[in-house]
């Protein structure tokens, strides 16, 4: 499914970003927004495990690799919009913040939240990945052949 045809692509994108971002950074950006949207908590933050799967030979049958910790929460805004948060790790605040952001991103506040909160998170993850990729690139082997000059 490509981004153009998938109606859930945008929501999937921000939920994935919220799940992978550091809890502390999300918490700070949320505080900086200085908003207190009226909401009810549909599902209190709950810590659980997800069984991560791999494939035999990277392409074959699935197998269970091991679990990872995940925390989830759900909220409902006063206008009825429901938001869900599924985040890596065991930080309950992280899951609640993610659920609130998910809900607000479905309202007319979306553009403002995207600029003030999601963009810095996106930049942070991208920067982290780029930094590692740059160090990896510096360890790439350049083979050369010794010229023996036998002629």
């Amino acid at each position, binding site marked *: 499914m490509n981004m153009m045809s998938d109606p859930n692509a945008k929501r999937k994108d921000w939920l994935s970003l919220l799940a992978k971002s550091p809890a502390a950074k999300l918490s700070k950006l949320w505080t900086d927004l200085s908003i207190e949207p009226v909401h009810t908590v549909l599902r209190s933050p709950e810590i659980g495990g997800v069984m991560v799967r791999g494939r035999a030979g990277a392409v074959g049958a699935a197998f*269970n690799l091991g679990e990872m910790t995940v925390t989830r929460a759900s909220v409902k805004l006063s206008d009825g919009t429901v938001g869900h948060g599924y985040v890596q790790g065991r930080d309950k605040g992280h899951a609640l913040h993610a659920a609130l952001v998910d809900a607000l991103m479905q309202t007319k506040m979306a553009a403002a939240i995207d600029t003030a909160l999601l963009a810095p998170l996106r930049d942070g993850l991208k920067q982290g990945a780029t930094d590692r990729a740059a160090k990896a690139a510096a*360890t*790439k082997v350049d083979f050369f052949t010794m010229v023996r000059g036998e002629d």
Partner: protein
Amino acid sequence: MYVAVKGGERAIDNAHAWLAEERRGDTDIPELSVAQIREQMSLAVNRVMAEGSLYDPHLAALAIKQARGDLIEAIFLIRAYRTTLPRFGGSNPIETQNMQCDRRVSATFKDAPGGQILGPTFDYTHRLLDFKLAADGEAADAPTAAPSQAPTPHIMSFLDREQLIQTEPTGEAVPDDLTRTPLELPASRALRLQSLTRGDEGFILGMAYSTQRGYARNHAFVAELRIGAVAVEMDIPELGFAIEIGEITVTECETVNQFQGSKTQPPQFTRGYGLVFGMTERKAISMALVDRALRWKELGEDNLGAPAQDEEFVLYHSDNIQATGFLEHIKLPHYVDFQSELELIRKLRREAQDNISREAAE
């Protein structure tokens, strides 16, 4: 026979208090924080996550602190914690071809697309103690270069295109799970791989080494070893679509092995596979060799009677928590058991003595 015994409570409480004090060590030395262990003992943390079968670096670091650095004890703590977690579901299989590789080497193709990327490796170090670290652990920033934009395809896919390598069969969408149903033999490959990836590193290494030394000889080339971050995606029922729920670092090893062909198949290379949480390449390579050895039956090879081909032997002895639980229980009180043994041996000796006396008298 089990009987209730009372009376050890005070001794146990005091032993645990002393354990806590010994764990802390000399109080003139600053205490280790969990974050310090997580950041600076990261390969120990990775091993505890892999064999504890739970990806959570902070919890693994806490377990190492609590266990005074005894990694099997730390793995035990993680396994125990794991059982308390409600299972939210299973992820989609991770896509390792999309890995952001910190390291990626091939022992089979020098000019592999994507290149040979050494990453933060111990390879090519001289294994000499670095006394500078004893005085000062500060490191200079690592050099950087322009990040590669090109994809890093699996090297095996090139051999696959030429049909030089055995294809991997597909299987159940929801694989068998060791943590839900007891291991039964013969085990599916999915169960074998799950068992190997959480198995004891030392045991899997020993088994793998035995295949290299000639017990079920199966000369393996490391076609590819890659380490890096992959996203974990899961279907969320309340959303009706899949999202990424996190990102984990894994080590993947694919071996290519000799295969003479069988009655029904032309000669073709075969594969072994290792995939382990964290930066754990010794374990991933070992896993791939043992996986390959255990596949003798499905590949139509002979059973050479080697330990690494015996799935009962390998799978039932690779789990260090099961092993240590059974092994260490023999130090706990067996007073009544032993009392009966003692009485039995005294009785046998008495009878033997009586027989000797009787024979002497006759």
